[in-house]
């Protein structure tokens, strides 16, 4: 019998396989159970698996399969009635999305034991309470709220060459005018 394909697809067809298990149990006592404790976990939590399998040819260790648990194996002993009591421990995978998940093991060919559990969102790490800001920790207030741009224009040359030319022109005109007045006065007196 090709067992592997059935095991691999078990997670996708639990209901169908459970139906098959019921039929198998009636035939060869391959009754199986699997419980997950605790039933509500968070990523990284440790969980305990415990179950039974009545299949006569069941062997341990029995590997588990789950989308949310790190793979492990189940071990145990068979009681006098021929039922295996098996246990194992594992952890919830990190970054698992919250929701309902399952874990299973193969009790008999085509017959799996299934346990269900719920993954809840990881509790955010508690944030440190905001500390009251002491005066020395406050953002530094600018003593000059708006700093002036650039340098200060605090000087003007007494005279500039270009301006001197203009001023010399004014002076020359004044001298010419004074000279003219002098000549006019001299001539007037001469008459």
């Amino acid at each position, binding site marked *: 019998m090709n067992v592997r394909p059935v095991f691999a697809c078990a997670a996708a067809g639990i209901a169908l396989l459970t139906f098959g298990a019921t039929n198998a149990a009636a035939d060869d006592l391959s009754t199986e159970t699997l419980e997950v404790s605790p039933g509500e976990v968070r990523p990284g939590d440790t969980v305990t698996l415990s179950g039974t399998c009545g299949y006569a040819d069941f062997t341990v260790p029995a590997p588990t399969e789950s989308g949310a648990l790190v793979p492990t194996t189940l071990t145990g002993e068979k009681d006098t009635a021929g039922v295996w009591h098996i246990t194992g421990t594992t952890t919830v995978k990190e970054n698992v999305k919250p929701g309902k998940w399952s874990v299973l093991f193969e009790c008999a060919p085509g017959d799996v034991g299934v346990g269900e559990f719920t993954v809840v969102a990881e509790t955010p790490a508690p944030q440190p309470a905001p500390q009251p800001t002491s005066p020395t920790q406050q953002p530094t207030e600018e003593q000059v709220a708006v*700093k*002036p*741009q*650039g340098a200060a224009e*605090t*000087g*003007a040359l*007494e005279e500039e060459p270009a301006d001197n030319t203009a001023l010399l022109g004014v002076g020359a005109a004044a001298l010419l005018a004074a000279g003219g007045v002098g000549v006019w006065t001299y001539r007037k007196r001469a008459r």
Partner: protein
Amino acid sequence: MVTAAGLATTMLLAGCGASSQAPRPAPATSTSRIAQDIAPPKEISIPRIGASSALVELGLNADGTVQVPPVDAPMQAGWFTGAPRPGAPGPAVILGHVNGGGQAGIFARLHKLTEGDEVLIGRTDGTTARFTVTRADQVSKKHFPTNEVYGNTDGPELRLITCGGSFDHDAHSYRDNVIIYATLTG
């Protein structure tokens, strides 16, 4: 000729940058209680260079530069109201011309101040703040040390600013600023 002379005078005034900008109010300064408890400055006296002047209020020009006293009254100094008042924590700033209007300015000899010289600031409440010079710098206007001049200080300090260095005829402006740093000592 008279018109040309008048134009020349206008160019001189504009060259100082004092009258070419529309002034705007100085920004609010620190509102700490200490700052408000100190009366505004009224006058400055620098015995070492024989300079003394009343102080006018200066703010910011529209382009963000600091206002300066009227260049045609070069013996007038002013204090920048956007900075803390002299004696309050922070850098108080006082500006004056090195010259203007054909005569020497109030800070014509500011560059002669050296470490240890005193600067006295009289306040409107009659008190006087005594500052001691700690440093005298002459820096290019192209690399004006804004943070050193206007940045936060541990205690009450004072900055005195005027022009210095050679004159740039094209820019109608001195190439440097003389900056005196002083701390409150009394």
